[in-house]
């Protein structure tokens, strides 16, 4: 462990003990803020761990982020600290507290509200403590501030540039009231505000304690050295990798105003000695719905995607010194004010991350990762008319899903999104108390995992039925009903996302992945799956015994074991898990698939569409065997999207088949 570090370790200007002690103390201080916010917050979104904390230096650079912070805030906290510095300059005083949620100033979306407290010592500004949490509502026309239909920020929610809320210790209640009067359930927003402000105070007290013990000069030196340390650590890792350039494209489903066309996000990565360059030129111009991403959020996606391959390197501004990011202006990954960006988390964000996973899977095959399911938010808002209730309710839900297949093992089943695997899903029993919605099922979806030598993780589905309610509407923020969660190195896709009303009845209606204000009545039922992860490696090479185990557990059906894996399994007695692999038939089936599968992927689109609509083949056949993209609301195949999707299938999947 300690052999090759001689030259590097001399570089710090602190003795090794003081350095290590202060580095850990910064981690501790930030985690202490996080713990406090988790235990005192009011927004259930924060309580579900959609928050982050940081200490930044006097220039706004991040010194340390919380160890359990959500991915989606990574790489943005320094930007909002700098925004406060830009706007207030010398006019920052002890006892001030600022607030900012502006995605055009380095924020993520309006719901992510950052409370920033400058820390002074002997009248010198030395640091900022930052607590960032997703408030349950920040105004706008739609509860939860997720307005799918909004094309600009005016309809999304309240945009708050850096604003002062405490001035030299005095609480500016007029400013706070102006703000929360534009939000739903204002008293809870004030609760969050107070809780976050108190959390930053906890960080401040800890920092002052460190300064009193170690001296200001030592602590300020440690601020720099901790960033230098991360930079040094990162550079030493990158230097060990080959130089080169890698490129790939992932897609958002569509621009509603364009129609049939996947929206490309292009990621070109170059490793040059001990630095990494990401160039997202070639990505589509910004689109007419809120799946665009602002600069800060896209930067975050690049950092988080990269960090996944260097899990042990701590997060601070030292990381941003060896990772360089070029985001083309006016594009879907760098949307300017006032373009709507609230849905970035379901849109551009995870596309950038998964594209980066794909690139690094080539460089570090032992840590390869196929595409994971898409983050999704379902919102039902309306009037609760249950006996004893007479209030506005919000059923605001997100699901776990399957993660991508990996180099030596299957993807993780039913895990929180890559957007933040620490984000916890909500208990149905809690939701049922708070809203007139009964959850009818919350379960793993058989055959949702993308087939592969190492299959993706299984996805989940969750749905329910409305009871006593009035004036109730549903909105959905998701993606990948067309840019279906893909496999790599020969692996196959999982299944399309998308919500349905009245599932499995004659009135079944497919609503897609982006919609808002769909009216619901008492008795209306709904359902939606989360995708599984994409597969890794040729499914025909999967050990039939693993397929058998999956069949016993119901992760894979007998039918799909045959179609996806070419494994023929005979059911002998399901009640006692008695099944049998027909080895000979399996060999024949695999041979048959191997011979024909390239042809299936070239089958005429209309013919696939017709066979699907006649019931001859199902949705999984359509995507996995034929690579055809269908609009499930109309049953019509989409020729442009299909062509784009088939191109990627050729590159990611076909090219690896023997």
């Amino acid at each position, binding site marked *: *462990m*300690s052999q090759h*570090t*001689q030259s590097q370790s001399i570089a710090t200007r602190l003795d*090794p*003990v003081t350095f*290590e*002690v202060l580095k*850990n103390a910064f981690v501790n201080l930030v985690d202490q803020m996080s713990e406090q916010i988790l*235990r*005192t*917050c*009011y927004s259930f979104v924060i309580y579900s*761990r959609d928050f982050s904390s940081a200490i930044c230096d006097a220039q706004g650079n991040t010194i340390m982020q919380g160890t*359990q*912070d959500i991915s989606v805030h990574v790489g943005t906290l320094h930007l909002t600290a700098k925004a406060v510095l830009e706007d207030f300059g010398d006019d920052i005083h002890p006892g001030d507290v600022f607030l900012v949620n502006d995605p055009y100033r380095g924020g993520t979306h309006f719901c992510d509200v950052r409370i920033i407290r400058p820390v002074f010592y002997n009248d010198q500004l030395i640091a900022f403590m930052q607590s960032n949490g997703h408030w349950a509502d920040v105004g706008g026309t739609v509860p939860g501030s997720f307005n799918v239909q909004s094309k600009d920020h005016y309809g999304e929610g309240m945009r708050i540039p850096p604003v002062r809320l405490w001035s030299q210790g005095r609480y500016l209640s007029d400013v706070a009231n102006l703000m929360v009067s534009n939000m739903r359930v204002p*008293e*809870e927003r004030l*609760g969050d505000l*107070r809780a976050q402000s*108190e959390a930053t*105070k906890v960080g401040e007290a800890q920092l002052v304690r460190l300064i009193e013990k170690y001296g200001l000069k030592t602590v300020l030196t440690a601020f720099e050295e901790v960033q230098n*340390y*991360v930079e*040094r*650590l990162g550079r030493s890792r990158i230097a060990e990798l080959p130089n080169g350039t890698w490129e790939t494209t992932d897609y958002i489903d569509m621009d509603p105003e364009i129609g049939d066309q996947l929206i490309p996000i292009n990621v070109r990565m170059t490793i040059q000695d001990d630095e990494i360059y990401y160039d997202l030129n070639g990505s589509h111009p910004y689109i007419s719905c809120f799946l665009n991403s602002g600069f800060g959020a896209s930067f975050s996606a690049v950092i988080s995607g990269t960090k*996944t391959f260097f*899990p*042990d390197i701590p997060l601070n501004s030292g990381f941003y010194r060896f990772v360089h990011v070029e985001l083309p202006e006016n594009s879907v990954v760098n949307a300017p004010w006032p373009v709507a960006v609230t849905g970035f988390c379901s849109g551009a964000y995870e596309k950038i991350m998964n594209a980066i996973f794909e690139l690094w899977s080539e460089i570090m095959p032992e*840590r390869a990762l196929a595409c994971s399911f898409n983050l999704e938010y379902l919102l039902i808002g309306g009037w609760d008319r249950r006996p004893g209730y007479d209030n506005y309710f919000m059923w605001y839900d997100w699901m*776990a899903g399957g993660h991508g297949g*990996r180099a030596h093992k299957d993807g*993780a089943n*039913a*895990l*929180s999104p890559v957007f*933040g*695997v*620490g*984000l*916890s899903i909500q*208990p*149905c*029993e*809690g939701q*049922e*108390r708070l809203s007139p919605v*009964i*959850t009818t*099922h*919350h*379960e*793993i979806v058989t055959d949702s995992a993308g087939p592969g030598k190492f299959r993706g993780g299984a996805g*989940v589905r969750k749905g329910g039925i409305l009871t006593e309610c009035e004036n109730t509407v549903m909105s959905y923020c998701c993606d990948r009903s067309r840019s279906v969660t893909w496999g790599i190195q020969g692996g196959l896709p999982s299944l399309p996302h998308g919500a349905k009303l009245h599932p499995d009845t004659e009135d079944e209606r497919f609503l897609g992945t982006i919609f808002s204000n769909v009216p619901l009545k008492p008795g209306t039922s709904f359902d939606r799956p989360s995708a599984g992860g994409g597969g890794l490696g040729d499914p025909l090479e999967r050990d039939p015994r693993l397929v058998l185990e999956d069949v*016993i*557990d*119901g992760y894979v059906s007998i039918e799909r074991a045959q179609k996806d894996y070419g494994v023929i399994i005979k059911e002998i007695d399901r*009640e*006692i*898990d008695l099944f049998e692999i027909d080895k000979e038939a399996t060999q024949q089936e695999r041979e048959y698939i191997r011979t024909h599968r390239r042809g299936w992927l070239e089958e005429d689109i209309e013919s696939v569409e017709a066979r699907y609509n006649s019931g001859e083949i199902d949705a999984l056949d359509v995507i996995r065997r034929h690579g055809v993209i269908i609009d499930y609301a109309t049953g019509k195949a989409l020729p442009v999207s299909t062509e784009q999707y088939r191109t990627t299938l050729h590159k990611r999947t076909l090219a690896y088949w023997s």
Partner: protein
Amino acid sequence: MGKYRVAVDVGGTFTDVFVFDEEQGEITVTKVSSTPDNPARGILEGVKNSAVPLQDITLFSHGTTVGTNALITRRLPKTAFIASKGFRDVPEIRRGTKLELWDAYEDVAPPYIRRRDRFEVLERVDYNGKLLTPLDEEEARDLVRILKRRGVESVAICFMNAYVNGQNEQRMKEIIQEEMPDVYVCTSSDTLPEIFEHERFSTTIANAVLGPIVSKYIQELSASLHADGYNGDVLVLHSGGGVMTSETVPRYAARLASSGIAAGAIASAHIAKLCGFQNAIGLDMGGTSTDISLMYNGELRVTKDWYIEYGYPIGFPSIEILTIGAGGGSLAWIDEGGSLRNGPQSAGATPGPACYERGGTEPTNSDANLVLGRLGTELLDGQMTLNIEKAHEVVRHIAEPFGYTEEEAANAIIKVANANMCDALRLISVRRGYDPRDFALVVFGGAGALHGAHLAKEMEIPTVIVPPHPGITSAMGCLLVDVRHDISKTYLVNVKEASLDELEKEYINMEVEAAELLAEEGVADDHIELTRYIDMRYMGQWRSLSIPISRPIQSLEEALEQFHKEHEREFAFSNPEQGVEIYGMRVTATGVVPKPDLPTSEPEGRLEDAIKGTRNVYFEESGGFTESTVYNRSLLPVGSLFTGPAIVEQLDSTVVVPPGFIAEVDAYKNLILTYKDKEEK
């Protein structure tokens, strides 16, 4: 005929048998190798070796790793899970999160019950307890037929909203018991009637998979002990810090998921109280890790966020123990960024520290302590020799890159280890709003006393207590406990709308249930103590705080005031203007077990006779190696007083008394260290 109390602590490597002779007031300890394949065998052998006649044992209490091992290895009975239709995957979906956020290859452990063993049945209750769909009995019976065919040994019945209405669960249980009378059955409404399906189901599953195993284990152990002449109860320690008897083990098996963990915390709390402290932090530092606990106002902190493996919570209240990877065997290393690190990797028992000469090649805390002269070259009264050359050799791995001498490097290693422990001490104290200056630090475990004084100085903790036998303090904890049960339930109501009569009725129901449990265990009525707690939170908040409440309830005002105060203490703010909601209720029922009086001694002998000699010990605060007196602890007279720098050696531990510290031996033979400059600081 003597009277003995026996406590057994079954560890991974050793089984310690702690015998307290009630008549002579003497303590003896016997160590035998653990027998993981059948832990009862090690216990019986240890008891046999201790030479105590079984018929003379008045109380037998123990902590066991049977439950922990079964969970971790997944060597579990064939257990089926039955859920409401649509919810059989709750134990696998969990809350969706993982602990290791950034490493895509680090997975959450698989569920205790595989998907093939998870079943569904048609039934449903709503949020209010209204029966939406009665149990489909035809379906239920058909399911039982299948379970029979599958040879199921245990069943967890977990229905949605059963915490408000457990009727369907109960009916399902009856049907199973009719058809399969020998099967072990748990319902979620009996196990932990609290809201949130994953947490309740997870606790119920832990109960179901452990029930048959720990019941069988306790029965066999009892049978063996009784066959050899013991005629009392076999008590077993649970994570809540009490003991239970074999009678209640089947119902609360999950409380034994980690039975021994609370023993050290209980012992340290007891010792601190004997020394006159109501606030104390326990620090148990062993070879690979350190367990830290906190007592405030005479009560150990309790948590409900507890698990053996991440993702599978066990919702019963447990003594809060913070474990960090810092022990005598923790490795010191330099990472690729040039930072000096300590742990969490450990050389463990094999290869162990380099100075043990069992093949260790990387520097550990023990090697550094040896280089610094804090550890002597002989341990266990000369039964083990440490190789100081080897220690120097490996410490060089740290010294060279930094341009340090070996002593400076060793000092740096220990300082980083101490800083990590201080961070953990801060987590459990300062972070929770406790001021360490109001506490005593009880240090034990093999390595605790080597570090305790420096930790206390850093944290400004005024007093350090080193118990007489640091290495076996945990085992002693098993003798210091009461029979204890915690009954809890979710109860949601705005404080303003709460009816005192309703609350009182609920509490009485819970108390009756608790008292029945204790009665089954043979606790006499006049030995039962009941304590009530109420969980409260600000309207709109998500977490609650547990507040003690009077019995019977006089008013909610007092609890409310206490809630604001606790919120202020723990989070540094409160808001008396804001509405408060009751979230849950808990009753703690204690069957008081008379505690042994730990022996006290009169001053006897002379301090000089305890001096073994002197050696040079490295203390940075004195500028380097400093001549220090070495004492033999077993010869230290009660009441003696001496100053650091000094080293106190004993069979199972070494105590470092740094310069500036005063050491005193109290009547219980605890060593009390205080920092004499603390007034001037």
